[in-house]
């Protein structure tokens, strides 16, 4: 009998510690602020320390997956929010978050005037505050084209031309957020003809991978895997990463006529334990210090256009002058249909 008790006692103890352990840190004091973010969150400690010095609030960051996963988790946990606020919902998921009613309106103090163009419209105007944006663009390996004495493509139409057959690789729209952005760029550019355009792309031997990593690090000629496709869907901020050691110029560039603009937002979650703290943090995020730190930490462009960009960004990571865009509510309304149609076109 004693023998059987031993494992029982051990595991009961274990469970007891488990339950006790969770009790101790489950309640956040008002001096801390929990922010749910996407996985790409990165911010230097000194910037967050500055926020703490100004407000006495410690920010705890909880990455929750990509923008889609983040939004869906917050929608699912609406009755018992995961965090006080959110950062990282983008314009392709914004209206899902708004429609689900997970946000509390907040009109950020001193929102830079250059940020006005990125605000949501209508009743949802104050639900989310734009913090930064980035352009998803087709990137080309210039050194590959130079070596082959070929002219790199410039436009979406070029990608479907025979000269570039078998050279383009893109992450899929159903599995990747840049992949979805590129699909939206083609929808904005081609309107109802977008499916025909994708048929042409597929006929031109376009390769579709699951994620950005597979496309860039395996198939792209300038990625980690030295692949065999010199054209890839990535970001307008990717080229500076391809500056070889000791050199000053990148070997790749972004095609600025192929870009979709992704805007990232922050918001206060309904049912938050610390709404006041999150409001302060949103004010801080649109302020000078945070905005200045965005390019180096998260490779995105600050919504405040008066903020100075890093030197190599100014030269090698310009944003698109005329990016494509699709209204966020249209994205939410049509997402499932578009993705299903896209899946049908690309799997033929």
């Amino acid at each position: 009998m004693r023998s059987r008790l031993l494992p029982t006692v051990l595991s009961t103890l274990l469970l007891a510690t488990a339950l006790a352990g969770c009790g101790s840190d489950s309640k956040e004091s008002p001096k801390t602020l929990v922010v749910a973010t996407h996985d790409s969150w990165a911010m230097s400690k000194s910037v967050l320390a500055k926020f703490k010095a100004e407000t006495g609030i410690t920010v705890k960051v909880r990455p929750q997956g990509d923008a889609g996963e983040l939004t869906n988790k917050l929608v699912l946990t609406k009755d018992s929010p995961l965090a006080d606020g959110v950062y990282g919902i983008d314009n392709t998921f914004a209206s899902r978050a708004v429609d689900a009613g997970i946000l509390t309106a907040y009109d950020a103090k001193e929102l830079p005037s250059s940020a006005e163009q990125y605000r949501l419209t209508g009743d949802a105007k104050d639900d989310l505050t734009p913090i930064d944006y980035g352009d998803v663009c087709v990137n080309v390996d210039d050194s590959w084209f130079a070596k082959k004495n070929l002219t790199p493509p410039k436009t979406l139409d070029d990608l479907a031309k025979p000269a570039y057959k078998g050279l383009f690789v893109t992450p899929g729209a159903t599995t990747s957020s840049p992949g979805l952005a590129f699909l939206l760029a083609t929808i904005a550019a081609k309107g109802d003809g977008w499916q025909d355009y994708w048929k042409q792309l597929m006929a031109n031997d376009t390769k579709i991978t699951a994620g950005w990593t597979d496309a860039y690090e395996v198939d792209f000629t300038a990625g980690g895997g030295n692949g065999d496709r010199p054209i890839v869907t990535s970001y307008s901020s990717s080229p500076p990463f391809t500056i070889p050691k000791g050199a000053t110029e990148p070997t790749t560039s972004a095609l600025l006529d192929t870009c979709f603009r992704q805007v990232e937002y922050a918001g206060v979650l309904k049912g938050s334990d610390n709404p006041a703290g999150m409001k302060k943090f949103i004010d801080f995020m649109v302020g000078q210090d945070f905005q200045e730190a965005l390019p180096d930490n998260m490779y995105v462009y600050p919504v405040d256009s008066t903020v100075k960009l890093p030197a190599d960004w100014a030269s090698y990571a310009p944003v698109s002058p005329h990016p494509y865009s699709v209204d966020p509510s249209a994205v939410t309304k049509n997402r499932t249909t578009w993705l299903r149609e896209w899946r049908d076109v690309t799997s033929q």
Partner: protein
Amino acid sequence: MTLRVRWGTVAIAAVPLTALVLFFVYPVVGMLARGLWPDGSLDLGAVTEVLGRPRTHRVLWFTVWSAGVATLVSVLAGLPVAFVLHRLRFPGRDLLRALVVVPFVLPTVVVGVAFRQLIAPSGPLGSLGLDGTATAIVAALVFFNISVVVRTVGAFWEAIDTRREEAAAVLGASPWQVFRTVTLPALVPGIVSAASVVFLFCATSFGVVLTMGGLRYSNVETEIYLLTTQELDLTGAAALSILQLVVITALLVLAARVRRSPGPVDRTTKRLPRPRLRQLPVLLWAGLVIVFLMAPLASLLSASLRQGDTWGLDNYRALGTTGAHNALLVPATTGLANSLQIAMVATVIALVLGSCVAFLVSRPGGGRPMGVLDGVFMLPLGVSAVTVGFGFLITLDKPPLDLRESALLIPIAQAMVALPLVVRTLAPVLRSVDDRQRQAAASLGAGPLRVLLTVDVPVAWRALIAAAGFAFAVSLGEFGATSFLARDDNPTLPVVIYRLIGHPGAENFGMAMAASVVLAATTAVVMFAVQRLRVASVGAF
């Protein structure tokens, strides 16, 4: 006496069952309920609609056949390796045993990239045209799962008495006849055990299918992932989760029927023989499999030592930093420390719970209830990590079970994944103990504890250590559940690697490769140490 034993049984069963209900059943049911009762009323029409879609049928068929083929190949490839590494004695054997486990813990994203770099049109094996094919998916699944076969069957094989085989040989049976008529029948329970675990791993793998298949193929798991994380179609996801549960329950019932106790086995502690020339075909076969397992590891190693056109240790030195352009929130080395800590806690939980389950299901005369118990603890392997992960978030959110912010959440989730492997390693060995030995000990006056210590433990000790090593390895490499739960202040090494490889820049890619090699090496060292420990401890009995 009978009454006391029953109460003991109930008490021992209560602990793992409580854990299973709290950390698996409750979250999964919570998630299913969201999908099936979207507005407070049961919506079965939507479920039948999802199940009737031609796409669902395609996805189900692909899941079953890809996992089935991968399981078959894993067993065929793993058996000779299990023999060579567990029934022969040669220098370097322990090191090989440790290395063989490594593929199992590597993050899928890294293996996916390593594999694709080999088979992409630009890679050394590009001419085979495997990129994006079902063959590539199956090959990657096999790569991950061979070690499950080697270790589960190996632990079992070690415990089989060789004298019956020797007797058959003396009576004139050829080595093949001996294997077919004596060894194989004795191994069947171990093989079925391993095969069912492998099938569950394959049927629920999603990283491999996404990376290797390039969207041409989907299995039930990738479909649930997309429906839940991207489309928020919870009804569709719930319908597929139920489908997954039904298929897996059917499989487990089938496996339980095939898996019969081999009956009691007498044991000797004879030294293992050295390889002999007539075993050359088996040795070659095992050698080829080991080469297949090591090739991607070698390519990882070489990628980790390269930075641009130069070779060196820069990528390893960079692990103390947060990567180029601040790719990480904490240095990669912190990720390693987190991983080790979490793995230790997860191993303890999995061993405690797993020993209880294995002890119960291996009692003779347990009958049907124990068979059910055995199957029930396999379920966590067969249900989507997305469903469990999201379920954690929506169910474990209120006191007294507000675990979402607890540091124990990740170890618990990982322990639930490791638990079936612990049971699978321990139970067959315990089952092979002749109950008459226990009865003899008891009739000689030994109390239950004494019986356990003198009869069961000496036999199960090796398997227990093997199980501990395995649980540790599972926890080190676990990514599915962890990625849904990891918090920024304690990312595990696989999470760190995933982040690094998701950032552009040669430095980050190099660091991801170096971190993967560190993960692989850590696993190998732990497995190797466990082996050494085992040899030393066995002498104590």
